[in-house]
């Protein structure tokens, strides 16, 4: 039976997490000797983008009632068209709201925060993130159907072009319980969980007025910005930037931590980053023990200098 995947879009445009989920679904389908069907709600992007990562069928749900997001209505819509025993979602905020509701509707097992391709398909067993990044769990699904959410930046986006076909499904799902009053999207800002490079800073920066150099380094690198918990608690940065055990868990390719000592709760949210660079004036900062590269010194001199050198590298 075909593997289904929920290809999330924002305002019709596919997210990177959608391509990663399709890549993951393709790996499952290859293991099972089957094909991938992607489901999307009101996309404006071309289905070619999904064929590129291995989806050979794309079901485009058209429903004016689903112009605004509602976890329950989206779960109902996906439930109507997902006719397979494996359904893959990205572990984004919206998709991980839909997946639990769909799991109950279908009476399927749900395994979230998945990191790798499955260890076995029958029963479905897979490695997932647990204990806020301080450990891993190998989870086994009971029963016939399984829904999984794939942790962002864990499996990666893998091109695997197939020839595909598209089907349009016109639905009219009732969406009466919730109504969007306002929607604020900060334009031009990289999504922290999707970013491949993250530049983060802590109390070592001494005040919010000093974040300009962090933003500049992030701009040069095409990175998102983040912060430690104390910094968001004091209000120097918005809590949406807080990475750590009670904030966001991220797994970028490169995490640069400036003036962050590296408390166990902070490490929990960032230690699945592939490469970690720590800049701190205190040579005893515990974060150095969990870093790949470290620079001991004054961030106010190091960061602007590093920014210039990276600018030069990028030409």
């Amino acid at each position, binding site marked *: 039976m075909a593997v289904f995947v929920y290809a999330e879009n924002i305002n019709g445009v596919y997210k990177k997490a959608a391509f990663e989920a399709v890549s993951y679904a393709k790996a499952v389908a290859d293991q099972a000797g089957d094909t991938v069907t992607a489901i999307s709600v009101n996309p404006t992007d071309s289905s070619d983008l999904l064929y590129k990562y291995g989806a050979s069928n794309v079901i485009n749900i058209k429903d004016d009632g689903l112009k605004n997001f509602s976890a329950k209505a989206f779960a109902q819509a996906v439930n109507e068209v997902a006719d397979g025993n494996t359904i893959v979602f990205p572990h984004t905020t919206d998709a991980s709201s839909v997946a639990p509701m769909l799991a109950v509707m279908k009476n399927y097992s749900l395994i979230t925060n998945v990191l790798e391709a499955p260890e076995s398909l029958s029963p479905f067993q897979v490695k997932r993130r647990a204990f806020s990044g301080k450990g891993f769990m190998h989870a086994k699904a009971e029963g016939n159907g399984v829904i999984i959410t794939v942790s962002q930046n864990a499996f990666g986006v893998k091109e695997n072009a197939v020839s595909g076909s598209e089907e349009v499904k016109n639905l009219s799902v009732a969406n009466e319980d*919730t109504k969007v009053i306002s929607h604020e999207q900060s334009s031009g800002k990289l999504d922290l969980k999707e970013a491949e490079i993250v530049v983060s800073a802590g109390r070592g920066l001494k005040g919010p007025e000093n974040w300009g150099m962090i933003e500049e380094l992030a701009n040069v690198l095409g990175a998102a910005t983040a912060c430690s918990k104390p910094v968001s608690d004091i209000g120097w940065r918005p809590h949406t930037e807080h990475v750590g055990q009670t904030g966001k868990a991220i797994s970028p390719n490169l995490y640069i931590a400036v003036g962050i000592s590296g408390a166990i709760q902070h490490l929990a949210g960032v230690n699945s980053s592939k490469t970690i660079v720590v800049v701190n004036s205190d040579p005893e900062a515990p974060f150095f023990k969990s870093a790949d590269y470290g620079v001991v010194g004054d961030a106010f001199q190091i960061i602007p200098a590093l920014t210039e050198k990276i600018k030069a590298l990028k030409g």
Partner: protein
Amino acid sequence: MKILVCISSVPDTTSKINFTADKSAFDKNGIQWVINPLDEFALTKAIKLQESQGAVVTVINVGDAATEPVIRKALAIGANDAVRVNLDPKDSYSTAKEIAAVAQNGGYDLILCGKESIDYNGGSVPGMVAQLLNQPFVNASVGLDVNGSEATAVREIEGGKETISVKLPAVIAGQKGLVDEKDLIIPNMRGIMSARTKPLQVVEAVSSEVKVQGVSYDSVPPRAAVKIVSADNLDELVRLLHEEAKVI
């Protein structure tokens, strides 16, 4: 207004996480247990609604008797009463089923939860409870007001925020921002004393169906020793990131 707050008992955030020698389970030795920090935001929000709107706040926990100190702490923070479902929960589905069973006949206007627990990180219980009760669900909520039979919730979306109105009863999963960190309630002596006499009802589980098993667990492998680069030689750092790690 009646509010049900779902709380989970989890290892303190400073805990080192170890697994048993055969890697089949989390090693609970030496662990301090706390209310899941994300549930604490939900509980504090409920207490604020109790103060401003006279809401009655019940906390629910699915757990064995060992979780009672954490339930008592929730009562000390200000919940009116508590229910413990006597089951050592094995997965999100079994937990959600028990919460939904208690909620079914409770006539709650609002069910508040943290968006995930910091131990198993399933992030699935709130949405499952909502679906089992056929109620609307708002996840990752960073703001909430209640006005009669409607709530206005602010939810975090990638790169922004969305404000929505929700018909009650509903399930809302909160996170940091639902209340400010500084507004979290630390129980005072009066709260602790009164918690001892508040009702804590223990009910038996209605189902033992488990959909996901934890087969084995691994610790995070240690990283190789850090390479320290001199602050005077940032060219070397750039070279390492470009040529060795290949990340820039």
